């Protein structure tokens, strides 16, 4: 796993795990790998994984069960909120950039629609080949 060394590593670990939860690779109630195993697979320090886990536990997304390990919450509302938060964050970055270029809201919508259509074609082609 390649990290961006300008961004705190614990934060990037959280992002990786949250992405997996939202994409469904980690399902509600799933057990996370052991701390050291996570550290090895991400090539990071055990302490950094622990810090990321602490924050995810504080945010309610990961549930720690003493002696059993760490689990993804089975509270669907929390996962849904997490998803909303991430969507909003990415939209904000995207919108702010285009807005700074003085592109109108209507044009942004049109461009996005056209872009998605092109992507759809691409995906269809890939699926056929």
């Amino acid at each position: 796993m390649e990290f961006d060394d300008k961004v705190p590593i614990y934060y990037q670990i959280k992002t990786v795990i949250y992405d997996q939860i939202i994409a469904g690779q980690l399902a509600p109630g799933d057990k996370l790998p052991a701390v050291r195993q996570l550290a090895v697979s991400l090539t990071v320090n055990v302490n950094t994984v622990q810090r990321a886990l602490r924050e995810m536990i504080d945010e309610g997304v990961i549930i720690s069960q003493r002696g059993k390990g760490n689990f993804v919450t089975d509270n669907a509302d929390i996962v849904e909120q997490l998803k909303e938060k991430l969507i909003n964050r990415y939209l904000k970055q995207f919108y702010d950039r285009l807005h700074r270029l003085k592109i109108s809201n209507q044009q942004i919508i049109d461009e996005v629609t056209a872009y998605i259509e092109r992507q759809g074609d691409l995906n269809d082609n890939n699926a056929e080949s």
Partner: protein
Amino acid sequence: MTTTLKVEQLNYRRNLKKILTNVSLTLSGNKIVGLLGENGAGKTTLMRLIAGVAKNASGTISINDETDPATRKSLISYSNPLGGMASNKRISEIKAFYQQVYPDFDEQKYDQMISFLKLDETQRLSALSKGTREKFVISLTLARQTSVYLLDEPFSGIDSMSRKKIINSIIQWKPVDSLMIISDHYVSEIAPILDEIVVIKDNTVAVHKAADVIREESGQSIEDYYESLYGEADSND
């Protein structure tokens, strides 16, 4: 118990030349600390003093409050480049020697590491490539169960595949409550596994900071931050 290394007012000269001046440093907990600095900055000297191999410095060094060099030696596993070993010795012979000398040598752990690193125990020291030799050194160093591990430039001049394997071994086999210090003059390759960095510059500790604090405060990579300490004016490359 978590390990604490305390260095206070350390001064060291060699042939009237100042090597280290007023070095004070407290490292606590179960961390991995990067000891950075240019070639010749005094990183190896500091490691040798901590390990009790180099002597005659003024100031104090303690590990878990122990200052006696002999006691300190037993608490530290210091990577040894095996310069004192005859080059016709086999890996298995050198391992047997370590096992005899160090009562804290954990054979099971050693076996796990050499199988992970794919070392062939029948090979002679002289036949090992630089990367393989370093893998062997790391296996010997980590096989000891100690409070402190000192790795002196374990990555210099080795290929990236070996480097990755060594980094993985460190993550897997460093005991949880031990302190590890890794010296290097390239930081980017080890930055993701460091909790803290200590920079030695102008014979003393110029910086001691948590890696994620640097990223958070400056928005810089550890390497950029480290390079910014030198500026362009006094670059002597």
